[in-house]
């Protein structure tokens, strides 16, 4: 969320400087990704604070952590008695709340400089005054809005899932083949928008638009997420639907949007509100004992109460009432985090762990083996858990025997290794090409085989400049005192016709040559137990 600094100052009487605020936010609320004189960006990736996806939510948070005064209150909403826009919601699970207001007498123009600046501070491009209102409201309240050109919508509006074979051209000009799970807004001629994701091109607001159908809705977050992913259409709107919306806020936002259109000279002529618009309240238990024992500090009850009050919670006896905008607060521990944040995590003292006797520990077998190998003069390498395309090609591997990644990043991460020595051979070749005349390396790591088997292997690769490196490799092997059970070098075609044992072999020059090198290389592979 990019937060416009000018806009924030309209919403809250900041009693600290912006620089101080930018230093404080990561300690109380959320990290800051980037900032300049116009905006700061909250790091919201994956975060569950839906309220912080709006200017008002950020203003409430800022007011609470800085003891500043908010310049707004929730209004009491009363819509006038007007005719209804004809709407049918066919799937009330996917669309529990659906509201449409018809506004006429509009003239599409460029937005004023204040609006353009607010939008651009928040990372959104200005389109025109009518469309910009929907984005300004989304930014201020966190409630996405969509404006259809009312003259391009024929007959009754319906909210339904797509039918087989249905298509829509979206605002970006692309034709989208719809899936039968996609939730749509449609008129009697077909789809006019993908609900919560993107509007349709045919019903777009253009220069000639004079009336709009303004939509404010709550859609099922999972459905919106799936549809946005299916069509590769992540958007500011769909992000907010996925994080969750509230009814109180929707009504606040809708009333504010209508007011903005009216200020442009528009006239509200019809309105339809569908769904249960009553916001429930959430009460949770909070005890002083649990609070103190989880944070590890004795915070006086008055301080707990006043901290929560600043954040919009009320605490009465041991019952906390959660403000409607905090969808992320569901259990006692969530409230305790609020108390801890307001106390300041950085003020929590350090408390040592009690003494502890354990018999477990276990001898670090693998580390000891690594140490022995390094003491013998070998260098430890770590290679990818995959076979590179160079390895699969040069070894002509039958990949059916390997674990396959369903969504590889590239063909370099498609197949998982089932032995280590091929990757070491690749590493030896790379180092020889870099001018090394002697390469003695080892790796201890996991190898994988279908369906989900993992075992630890040790592999060594040795290029010592001689034409018979297995002699020295055997000495190294003898020094390790291993009695391996598994991990045999079984694919004879990769190895020298005479120089091999169960666990050691000279790699066949035919294989070595394919990696573009001429030197003789010996390899070892054994399974080890952890």
């Amino acid at each position, binding site marked *: 969320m990019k937060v416009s600094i000018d806009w924030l100052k309209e919403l809250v009487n900041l009693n600290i400087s912006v620089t101080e605020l930018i230093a404080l936010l990561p300690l109380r609320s959320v990290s800051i990704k980037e900032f300049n004189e116009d905006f700061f960006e909250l790091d919201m*990736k994956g975060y569950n604070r839906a309220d912080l996806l709006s200017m008002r939510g950020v203003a409430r948070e800022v007011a609470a952590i800085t003891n500043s005064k908010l310049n707004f209150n929730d209004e009491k909403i009363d819509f006038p008695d007007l005719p209804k826009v004809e709407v049918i919601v066919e799937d009330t699970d996917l669309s529990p709340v659906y509201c449409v207001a018809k506004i006429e007498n509009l003239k599409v123009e460029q937005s004023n400089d204040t609006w353009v600046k607010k939008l651009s501070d928040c990372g959104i491009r200005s389109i025109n005054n009518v469309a910009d209102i929907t984005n300004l409201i989304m930014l201020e309240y966190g409630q996405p809005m969509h404006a259809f050109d009312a003259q391009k919508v024929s007959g009754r509006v319906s909210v339904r899932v797509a039918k087989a074979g249905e298509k829509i051209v979206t605002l970006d000009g692309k034709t989208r083949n719809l899936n039968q799970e996609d939730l749509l807004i449609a008129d009697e001629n077909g789809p006019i928008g993908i609900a919560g994701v993107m509007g349709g091109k045919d019903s777009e607001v253009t220069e000639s638009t004079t009336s709009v159908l303004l939509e404010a809705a709550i859609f099922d977050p999972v459905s919106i997420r799936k549809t946005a992913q299916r069509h590769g259409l992540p958007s500011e709107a769909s992000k907010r639907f996925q994080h969750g919306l509230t009814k109180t806020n929707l009504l606040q936002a809708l009333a504010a949007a209508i007011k903005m259109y009216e200020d442009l000279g528009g006239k509200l002529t019809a309105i339809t509100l569908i769904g249960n618009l009553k916001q429930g309240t959430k009460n949770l238990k909070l005890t002083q004992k649990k609070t103190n024992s989880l944070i590890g500090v004795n915070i006086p009850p008055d301080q707990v109460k006043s901290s929560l009050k600043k954040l919009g919670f009320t605490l009465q006896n041991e019952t906390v009432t959660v403000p409607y905008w905090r969808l992320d607060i569901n259990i006692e521990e969530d409230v305790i985090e609020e108390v801890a944040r307001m106390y300041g995590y950085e003020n929590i003292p350090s408390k040592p762990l009690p003494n502890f006797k354990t018999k477990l520990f276990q001898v670090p077998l693998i580390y000891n083996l690594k140490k022995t190998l390094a003491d013998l003069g070998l260098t430890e390498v770590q290679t990818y858990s995959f076979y590179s395309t160079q390895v699969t090609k040069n070894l002509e591997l039958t990949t059916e025997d390997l674990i396959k990644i369903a969504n590889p990043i590239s063909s370099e991460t498609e197949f998982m290794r089932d032995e280590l020595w091929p990757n070491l051979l690749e590493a030896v070749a790379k180092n020889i090409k*870099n001018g090394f005349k002697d390469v003695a390396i080892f790796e201890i790591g996991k190898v994988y085989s279908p369906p989900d088997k993992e075992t630890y292997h040790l592999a060594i690769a040795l290029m010592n400049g001689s034409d018979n490196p297995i002699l020295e490799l055997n000495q190294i092997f003898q020094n390790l005192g291993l009695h391996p059970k598994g991990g045999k070098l079984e694919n004879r075609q990769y190895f020298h016709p005479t120089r091999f044992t169960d666990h050691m072999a000279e790699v066949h020059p035919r294989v070595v040559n394919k990696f573009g090198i001429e030197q003789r290389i010996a390899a070892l592979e054994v399974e080890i137990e952890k």
Partner: protein
Amino acid sequence: MEEKISQIQKNYLQRIAQAKTLKQLDEIFLALFGKKGELTLLPKEFGKLSEEEKRKISPLFNEIKLELETEISEARKKIREESYKKLKGEKFDLSGVEIKKRTGHLHPLTQIEQQTAEIFQKIGFSQFEAPHIDSDYNNFEVLNIPQNHPARDLWDTLYIIPGKLLLRTHTSNSQIRILKQNKPPIRLMNIGRCFRYENLDARHEHTFEQFELVYVDKNVSMANLQYLSEYFLKAIFGQEIKVRLKPKYYPFVEPGVGVDGLCIFCKGQGCQICGGVGWLELAGAGMIHPSVLKRGGIDPQVYSGIAWGFGPPRMAMLKFGIEDIRLFNSGILSFLQK
């Protein structure tokens, strides 16, 4: 021109056929394709040709070029295969030789990880193994990260069977196993490879290491978390390092904690490495979420716990001044032997 090309073809095919060693073939290759090779220089004469001739000559030239290339590489293979036949005559004995004197090296990640294991072992933590290949359930769902939840955006995942079997994206897949298989008090740690769907650059790897500990007992608090963070970072970076906690969201802890250390480069003055803030985020942690404890068979009314983890690659980069994360898995000796 046509004649000239077929002359080269005839001449060199003969020479290739007669070559007996790889060295001879290398010479032939150079004579054709080297800087002053016949086939390298020839196209410079094409300028003199008429358009019509060019249309005829160009494909012919390319055809001959490819033929000669293929012939050389086939001849190479043949000579090689001949030499491979001699391998059967090479003796195999394992008579003793001395091991060459070399200076060995442990991988920088092994060094950091062993140091970490020893630091935590001193205060009672034992090592615990968790698999790299795991179910979507153990890696995500049991940790309050259901399918189609916005929090999934935090982990780009490599799947073996989409939605079911995956490469673990974090060592947190050890949590449910640790909780189910042990009774409190618990002090266990898991170190190992994790995987993400990540395009490679100097700061991003798809294959990387994580460390994570799980501590469960009665009255475990955020004050213990502050202690663990200080205890570890002082052991790694020295007694003078300052440590502060801040809020951070992970779905499987509540409260969630980010662990900052005072920037070791600028001592808090603000520099390029810490992005001017004077602090570096060095670890992620939190109080284990009660629903995770419950799924692990532990009563959250009686016990609480800490999950605390960090990335050894990043720690090694800071401690040893390594600038490119890709070096760890590169096998490049000039890096590993530094």
